[in-house]
């Protein structure tokens, strides 16, 4: 090597590193921690500019980390004292624990907190409901997004019942030019979230079943849950080849490239498909059984924003939070992010037709949230993580629906008294 060049490089780097160390985030700049990395453009281009129009002196940075790393990272950052000022809150226990550890500040004194219903706030309150520690932002709704061209090609209508749904999938499969359903099990969580929690409420009757699981009057070995697993197992034949190795983004690509007919969705997928798909698509709720008079949907309180209790910019952060309780944010957020539905009581016009379709199910059907989130994921083994693994295995065909129910139940029984 040329020693001189090498030495010069070293000297330069050394000098640079010394200069770098004292550089820290300057005061007065709000950093928002989030797992919503898909939303970075919307925050940077719409939400933050809108806020700055009113408060130009407060600088806000949206700093997302990948969803799978988020929880571990935020814990580490709190431990290390490097967490941002505003913390995007997962619902229920993950955030409750952060509050208990003193990492999140109570937010009851924020003006405008009464713009949210008790149901909306319930996911970010202490068990007794006395303290709210995150400002509810949005919920997400599960359902199915479908490719209208694919449905036309196969000559099928939007299904109203479970039987129609599978008849349609069969027909698409037979016709052969589209993969009937785009999903994979490689990342595991889709199987649980877009599968189990999507179609399940129709079996366990939404809130009724969810509460029964918490008080112990229902078990995962009961019929509704085993039946949910059974329906999930039947998906295997409609999924693309090699679905075991297909990740969430793979599945999104399959659908947005127009190769698949149906996509088990979270409403948050809408914006991605809006930007990538070159065909028209629509949505339908998880179809209930033939002859059932009520439909149930998962309308999950998904995302909120909390305040880092040790934030040096607490005053500015509260300004931001207060602004978020207003109607401007509600409308901005719901429309900028079609598929995230504001939890505030403000009346919001949603312009996106597919998002509007999703939100309209709130009128037709009964809403519930994911059954593993409240209380039931407090112990080890963790129910949510168990459901990911089990649901993926059910689709992969490595466990039967009955075994899946038993596995989930026995995990819960290990630590949760009502199930012991």
């Amino acid at each position: 090597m040329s020693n001189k060049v090498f030495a010069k490089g070293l000297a330069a780097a050394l000098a640079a590193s010394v200069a770098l160390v004292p550089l820290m985030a300057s005061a007065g700049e709000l950093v928002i921690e989030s797992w919503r990395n898909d939303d970075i453009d919307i925050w940077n281009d719409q939400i933050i500019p809108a806020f700055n129009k009113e408060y130009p002196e407060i600088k806000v940075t949206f700093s997302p980390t990948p969803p799978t790393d988020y929880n571990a990272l935020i814990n580490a950052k709190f431990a290390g004292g490097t967490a941002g000022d505003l913390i995007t809150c997962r619902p229920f226990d993950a955030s409750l624990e952060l509050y208990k550890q003193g990492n999140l500040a109570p937010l009851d004194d924020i003006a405008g907190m009464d713009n949210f219903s008790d149901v909306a706030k319930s996911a970010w309150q202490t068990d007794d409901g006395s303290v709210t520690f995150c400002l509810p932002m949005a919920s997400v709704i599960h359902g199915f997004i479908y490719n209208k061209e694919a449905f036309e090609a196969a000559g099928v209508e939007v299904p109203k019942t479970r039987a129609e749904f599978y008849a349609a999938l069969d027909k698409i499969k037979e016709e052969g030019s589209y993969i009937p359903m785009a999903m994979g099990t490689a990342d595991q969580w889709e199987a649980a979230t877009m599968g189990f929690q999507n179609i399940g409420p129709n079996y366990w009757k939404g809130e009724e079943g969810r509460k029964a699981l918490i008080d112990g009057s229902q078990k995962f070995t009961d019929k509704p849950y085993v039946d949910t697993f059974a329906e999930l197992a039947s998906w295997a034949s409609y999924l693309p080849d090699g679905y075991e190795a297909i990740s969430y983004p793979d599945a999104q690509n399959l659908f947005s490239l127009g190769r698949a007919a149906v996509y088990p969705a979270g409403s948050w997928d809408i914006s991605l498909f809006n930007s990538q798909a070159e065909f028209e698509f629509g949505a339908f709720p998880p179809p209930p059984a033939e002859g059932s008079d009520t439909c149930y949907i998962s309308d999950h309180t998904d995302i909120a924003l909390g305040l880092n209790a040790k934030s040096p910019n607490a005053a500015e952060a509260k300004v931001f939070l207060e602004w978020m309780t207003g109607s401007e944010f509600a409308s901005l957020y719901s429309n900028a992010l079609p598929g995230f539905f504001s939890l505030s009581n403000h009346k919001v016009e949603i312009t996106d037709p597919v998002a509007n379709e999703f939100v309209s199910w709130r009128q037709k059907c009964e809403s519930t949230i994911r059954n593993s989130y409240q209380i039931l994921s407090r112990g080890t083994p963790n129910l949510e993580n168990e459901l990911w693994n089990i649901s993926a295995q059910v689709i992969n065909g490595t466990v039967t629906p009955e075994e899946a129910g038993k596995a989930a139940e026995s995990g819960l029984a290990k630590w949760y008294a009502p199930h012991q």
Partner: protein
Amino acid sequence: MAHSGPMTDWRKAKLPVFAFLAPATIIYTLFMIYPLIDSIRLSFYTTPSGGEMAFVGFDNYRTILGDPDWSATFWNSFWNNMKFFAVHMLVQNPIGIALAGILSLPQLRFRNTYRTMMIMPTMLSVVIVGFIWQLILSPVWGVGVDILDIFGLKSLFGPWLGKEGSALITLSFISVWQWVGIPLMLIYAALLAIPDDLVDAAIVDGATHFEVFLHIKLPLVLPTVAMVSILTFVGNFNAFDLIYAVKGALAGPNFSTDIMGTLFYRTFFGYQLQLGDPSLGATVASLMFLIILAGVLFYLFAVQRRLARYQL
């Protein structure tokens, strides 16, 4: 350790000796030895949520090795790690040795070019390697299928990374692909140190190049092979990045790719709705330490002592 002649008595140069040794020893002790010992200490404590740290003796070990859930997870990751290691020993090191042997053949043209190209994957970040192979093996992209199709083996393609039976093996092969450069480099260097005369002598003695390799070169580089093996062992039981990059901390499907590194990460930091537990994490780390220590001691006392190193 071999010494070249008598050493200088330190009493003639107390200050320099101290000054030479102190900085390295201090940094090393502070950021390596202390954390290791402190981790072991931490594994005897527990930290309840919001509470004070309390000494619990071997409770954490009892939990991990005794509790049916924990011990199943632990031993699952241990055996997965053993499989991961076995693939490296049986595939990576033989390929590395064979390629190094071929590269050290006399009068080989383009030797340096081949060597440079073959070591290239070793220089890449594990994260990048993980993504590259995820893309190639993705059933959606179809490159893997197309490549197999060239050899008429299209039907063999499967979602290897997604199947419980094949995910770990596939990841092991990806890791082998990346790390073959290490045995290749070290053994190649050792082979180059063998004097040409020895090879010529064996050839005049009637040996083919393969026989020269088998009877002369290989026995002479055995100590390096042993060193590569123990480095492989330590590296494999310390692996984390590849699995994390490809399968995430949950190491699916059904924990079939869970190795000790991912278990440690998950235990320490938590995952999704599950919260992390520093003491249990430290316990897992301490157990890993014991396993690695056992392997290293085995190497030092059972393997290295039996391998004579020859003056060439």
